[in-house]
């Protein structure tokens, strides 16, 4: 894969020597676009949906987008720390899911509804 340097593809191309997968002209920007769009969609979902469970699902979507960016930056810098960090993101996501779902079950048992606006009176 040394010819990549001769092709003058520059720093935008994901470095790929000695890595098995052929990335065929994909750049860091390709992945970051997908990551940004996924994060934005998750944010829109968090703002628009009123169902508590789906709101927490949207935070998981934003975790996914951040994890994708971590992996692709790790690949770009030829460092495995990005993938290691995704392990910690998964840990935090699992902890967040268990806490959030316990809260949702508690709130549902109190109000018999998953509507987030039921709890509007919580505002200070």
């Amino acid at each position, binding site marked *: 894969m040394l010819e990549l340097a001769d092709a003058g593809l520059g*720093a935008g191309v994901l470095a790929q*020597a000695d890595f098995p997968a052929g990335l065929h002209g994909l750049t860091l920007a390709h992945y970051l676009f*997908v990551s940004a769009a996924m994060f934005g969609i998750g944010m*829109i979902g968090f703002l*628009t*949906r009123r169902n508590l469970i789906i709101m927490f699902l949207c935070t998981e979507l934003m975790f996914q987008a951040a994890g*994708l960016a971590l*992996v692709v930056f790790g690949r770009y810098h030829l460092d495995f720390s990005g993938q290691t960090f995704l392990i910690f993101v998964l840990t935090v996501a699992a902890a967040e899911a268990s806490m959030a779902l316990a809260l949702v*079950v508690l709130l549902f048992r109190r109000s018999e509804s998953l509507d987030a606006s039921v709890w509007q009176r919580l505002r200070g």
Partner: protein
Amino acid sequence: MEAVVGNPFLLYLLFTLGAVGVFLAMPRERLRAEIIGLLLGSAAFGGVAVLLGYQGMVWSSEAFPWFRLPLDASGDQYVPTVLPNPYFYLFGLVALLGAVRMITHPRPVYAALHFILTIIATAGLVLLLAAEFMAFALIIIYAGAILITYLFVIMLATQAPTQEEPENLRSYDIRANAPVSSILVGFLMIGALSVLVAKGVPRLEPRNTTEYFTDPARRYTGGEVVRAIPQRLEKALRNEDIIQPEEIIARGEDGGLLIDGGERTAGVVVGDGDGDAIEGGVVRFVSWPDGFAPTNTESVGYNLIKGHPGAIEIAGVILLMAMLGAVVLARKQIQIDDEAKYEQARALGYAPARPGEAGGEGSDA
């Protein structure tokens, strides 16, 4: 350095199209237009894909000179000589459409299933980056563990459709909350992020790129990882009959293993059977077998244990605290009075005694 997307206005146009698509796909009481919305969203994604994949090719600059205005006039033009990887676009399309469908589907179970689709597509994207371990960890942990928990709670807390009411949707699932302003803000953020990515990425130098491609000693061979697991190199060398069964990897004068990742060589010496070199053994240097490299899992594990040992402990504490917190929260008893219990039992088809009647059949104290 090249700008990845020359003309941001085309990108803005496509994001506007995507925003309209997401807006049409939003749940509402009447005039549902999910199909049109998803088609518009796919068209926007296809436009961005074309922009990303082909905008640097020669035909675009000849046929459509306005197609890319280089943001950095002095920079080189990025001219891909091969077609971009089609799997990236496939997985990207599935991931984003699954995400859009997840935030727009009125039924929570289907939203969760679409999120699983997004996760699997993301795992495909990660797999393209040669990160096999993370790809399968995503599927196992996210799709297998976290999403199943979500599905349990969804099934616990939502009404199933019945024969009388095949839709049976709650009002909070049908009506979106401030869709116009949310989508406006969301796509403003996506647009700003994307243009920053397009303009900023070319200025971001990866670590020692030049040396990486030109200097063989700097190329990634995983020498550090192999030094941590010399048994694997020994086994590979024995399988290839490069060394004798009694030979082991030697240690240098400083006690470190004689493994050179840059030159892909290792020093071996005849061992005494207990993992030590025999007295006065002569070290000879052999090359690694062709294609021998630490796997992705080994490299990630090495990085995790070597680089972040404290963080693992903290992650363990976080998980323990989350488990304790969930138990504390979910154990909280909600008092249900006898009348409510009676109504619930009647709704389920039992005939318990009314509360207050002593000794009734089926009444539980």
